[in-house]
């Protein structure tokens, strides 16, 4: 009994003195619980909607009163314009209204599963409520069967690349420090910049190889095609990976052990999964947590991957995401470089 209590006591002394691990053990679950408690919301509101061909105050009123739709003031002239708006992400729902003010057809953006299912469910409920009115024909674009595979795979590609770029980079640098090999390197003429770049390039290459592999598996195992430009997808993936590698390097400068690096990586990866719009739409998140989403590279890459793979959109529709990814890449790599230099000094 004395031996056992001695072992337990020693463990607690070590845990208490390892403040980083202690903070991760206590603080992270608490933070995750609070953040995800707010973020995990399947109830989508403010679905961008437009009327097509004719305006109809009763339709507009019914949609607005439902609480899930935000109807644009502008009425688009024809179905082609509406499809164009959906493809470019301007709206998620387009309701075609005839000259009598009756909805005849509804187009829904199927590239975001939660938005699409919510829109379909609420529109059906609205139609059932207005008994006697002819039922509008619903067309789901880009993912007609509302397949969760089609919806998830583009985002999962980002998750898989994050795993490589974030965790392996962080572990790679911390391992050098733990083994003392980083000091051996600092004796040689290798510069800090060379060391930082040299430690990250292998993981960039591995992550890009993963992208090729995942795209092939998606195509041949799940039948998910890339409708858009593959080169564009790779270019965006490069920006996304650069930002993520920067985050990995940041972790490597904060963690003292590989265990800490792994724990910190989980702390960064979980928000990427839950706050990036991959599962829960950003529109459903309160601003209290949504701002975090805008700091995560996956938020933009998931949108890019869905846009390119499911909708076939080009760079002209992805400027915002591209600029955001570039800004995050510069910011995270820049911050990591400063910290990296300091930790080596």
């Amino acid at each position, binding site marked *: 009994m004395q031996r056992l209590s001695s072992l337990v006591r020693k463990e607690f002394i070590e845990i208490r003195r390892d403040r980083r691990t202690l903070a991760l053990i206590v603080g992270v679950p608490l933070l995750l619980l609070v953040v995800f408690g707010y973020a995990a919301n399947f109830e989508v509101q403010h679905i961008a909607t437009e009327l097509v061909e004719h305006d109809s105050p009763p339709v507009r009123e019914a949609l607005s009163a439902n609480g899930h739709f935000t109807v644009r003031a502008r009425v688009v002239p024809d179905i082609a314009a509406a499809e164009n708006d959906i493809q470019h992400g301007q709206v998620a729902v387009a309701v075609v209204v005839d000259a009598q003010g009756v909805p005849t057809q509804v187009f829904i953006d199927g590239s975001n599963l939660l938005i699409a299912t919510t829109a379909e469910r609420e529109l059906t409920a609205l139609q059932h409520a207005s008994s006697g009115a002819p039922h509008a024909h619903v067309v789901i674009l880009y993912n007609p069967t509302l397949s969760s595979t089609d919806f998830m795979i583009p985002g999962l590609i980002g998750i898989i690349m994050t795993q490589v770029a974030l965790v392996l980079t962080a572990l790679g640098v911390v391992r050098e420090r733990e*083994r*003392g*090999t980083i*000091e*051996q*390197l*600092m*004796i*040689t*003429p*290798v*510069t800090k910049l060379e060391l930082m770049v040299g430690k990250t390039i292998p993981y960039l290459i591995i992550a890009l190889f993963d992208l090729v592999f995942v795209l092939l598996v998606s195509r041949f195992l799940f039948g998910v095609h890339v409708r858009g430009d593959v080169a564009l997808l790779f270019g965006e993936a490069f920006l996304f990976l650069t930002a993520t590698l920067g985050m990995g390097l940041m972790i490597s400068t904060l963690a003292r052990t590989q265990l800490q690096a792994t724990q910190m990586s989980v702390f960064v990866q979980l928000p990427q999964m839950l706050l990036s719009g991959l599962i829960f739409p950003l529109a459903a998140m309160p601003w209290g947590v949504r701002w975090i989403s805008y700091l995560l590279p996956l938020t933009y890459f998931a949108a890019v991957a869905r846009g390119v793979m499911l909708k076939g959109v080009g760079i002209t529709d992805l400027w915002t995401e591209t600029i955001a990814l570039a800004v995050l890449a510069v910011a995270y790599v820049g911050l990591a470089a400063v910290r990296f230099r300091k930790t080596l*000094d």
Partner: protein
Amino acid sequence: MTEILAEGVVKAFGRTRVLDGVDLAVPRGELWGVVGADGAGKTTLLRCIAGLLEVDAGRVLPGRPGQSRLGFSQQGFHLYSDLTVDENVAFIGRLYGLDRATLRASAEELLAFAGLSDRGTSLAGELSGGMQQKLTLVCSLLHRPPILLLDEPTTGVDPLSRLEFWDLVEHLHAAGSTVLFASAYFDEVERCDRTVYLDHGRVVAAGTPDELRGDHATLEEAFLELTS
């Protein structure tokens, strides 16, 4: 001409002053030893001289890492356990910018002298402590630095490997290298041109082994009398 210099060096970690005004100047081609008990500041002194640590006060030479003139063999094994001997040697040699032919010639000669020629394909992590220490030394000598710092290079090494190791160091010394090493073993500093006694971050005595021994039977006795 002084190749290795510490002039009034002060270095503290937090409130602990590890080096407290250390002075030494090693002329070109000499072999000097720094000896002292654990915690005397030997490793900190060598790391300051190598430029891996910034001094709080004073001046050091060379004082800047990454110079082709300096070779530093650190305490313990700091190479890649999951690379082979040849891969470690090739990796470090390329970081020093050695071309293929120079690297091969240098590696072959040093590995042969260190008795590691037939272990080229062994993983470094599978070598004995003595062999790892010799591999560390080989890697720090690949670029043929004229200045060599050795931090407790034989700690944990068996007696035979220690002898082989010192053969290698004396060979380098005879070839003109300037060597400063730190050690906790007094018998090792018998080999030096001059020895520095370090105690609590201060130089308590310096001189040739004979000068330091004085009337005492051993260097160890002389040191104990000085520091008691």
